[in-house]
């Protein structure tokens, strides 16, 4: 984790711990899309007493966990092209219907990765525009613009230690003013009308240190707390 490289040894969250924390915020009865990568891990940590209907952009609602290896079906995959299952009550549909759900605001929440989030909730998560990665947008723009509640999971800084939470995105945008909450290895930050409000910080890191790792201006929420995660 990038935070390990800081002067003082701060124990940032692992990928699984970030996913665990995000999973606590998934509401019972909601329709949720989990982006490729870290967000996909969230489903493993949602309280099984909650009934969540997972959407996959390639045409599934009611997606279930990965099958056993004998039950893998090349026509039953998620948007990350990983094998999945379908729960009782699930449905298949075409891409047009799937994006009607996404762009039409029918999903409750989407959890996505990001390269950068700005203090106005602008999102950049599809292209680094560096000529290294071939530009690939997939469903990210439709998800970001269409979903009422867009939540981002990412490390607080890049592998090179650069801030990802920025005054203005320097990478190509995915969408403007869409992010509602950011989960990083160091903190949980809400995007509000009064700016970025820090709700939770990992133990051992103080607010000024967090601000030092952040390009955008942060505020500490009145009811902030220590970000507590079980060992996973």
């Amino acid at each position, binding site marked *: 984790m990038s935070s390990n490289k800081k002067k003082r040894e701060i124990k940032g969250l692992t990928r699984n711990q970030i996913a665990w924390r995000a999973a606590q915020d998934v509401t019972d009865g909601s329709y949720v899309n989990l982006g490729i990568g870290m967000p996909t891990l969230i489903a493993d940590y949602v309280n099984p007493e909650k009934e969540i209907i997972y959407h996959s952009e390639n045409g599934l*609602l009611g997606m279930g966990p990965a099958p056993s290896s004998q039950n893998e079906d090349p026509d039953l995959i998620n948007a990350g092209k990983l094998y999945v299952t*379908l729960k009782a009550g699930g449905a298949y549909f075409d891409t047009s219907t799937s994006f009607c759900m996404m762009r039409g605001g029918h999903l409750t929440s989407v959890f996505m990765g990001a390269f950068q989030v700005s203090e106005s909730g602008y999102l950049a998560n599809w292209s680094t525009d560096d000529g290294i990665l071939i530009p690939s947008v997939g469903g990210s723009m439709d998800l970001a613009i269409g979903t009422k509640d867009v939540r981002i999971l990412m490390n607080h800084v890049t592998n090179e230690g650069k801030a990802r939470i920025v005054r203005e995105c320097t990478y190509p945008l995915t969408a403007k003013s869409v992010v509602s909450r950011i989960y990083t290895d160091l903190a949980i930050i809400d995007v509000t009308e009064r700016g970025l409000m820090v709700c939770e910080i990992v133990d051992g890191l103080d607010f000024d240190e967090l601000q030092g790792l952040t390009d955008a201006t942060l505020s500490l929420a009145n009811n902030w707390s220590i970000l507590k995660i079980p060992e996973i």
Partner: protein
Amino acid sequence: MIDKRKKSIEESLDGLLKDGVTLLIGGFGDSGAPFELMQGVLTAGFRDLTIVSNNAGTGDRGIAALLEAGLVKKVICSYPRSSGAYVIERMYKEGAVELEVVPQGTLVERIRCGGAGLGGFYTPTGIGTPMAEGKEVKIIKGREYILEEALFGDIALIKAAVADRWGNLLYTKASRNFGPVMATSASRTIVQVCKTVELGCLNPEAIVTPGIFVDQIVEVRADNEF
């Protein structure tokens, strides 16, 4: 647990209706028309309703009953003329109700646009006709099109054949018509169904309206048997 089933028509409509709301009402003629839900709207008695539907009611029930009771400010439809459509015909001639007649394909596409999060679309339908009056015309690849804007409702009232508790729907034959599109394009979608089944009973390949588009289900044992 997700359970969209309501015990009665009244419960399914409770707290949703108010004066001035826009209702999307399914059906092509009587086929697919949610008569019991419309009766519930009549009983609730809220006024200044805007009704979006393919037709404008025949006889004394459904949309005709809402019109006759003076609850309707405006009807947006494609084909109000029908055998037995005497209520809308009289009220239209008397100027007692606003009427916006829209080509059927434009009507359903405007509703779909609303449900799909799109702002509008360019259609060739109506070019050179009164339907184009006051609308932007654009030439795309050498052909003329009219701009039509999305149509979104406060409440969609539709009828389906079978539902499960997640709100997945199947319809019967040609009663499907406007149901699947209207379900997508309202703040709340309420569906009267002939039958509810356990989760997992519907073939996931054959579900016509996935439950994400449905908010409430109420079982009405109708003349249609399954």
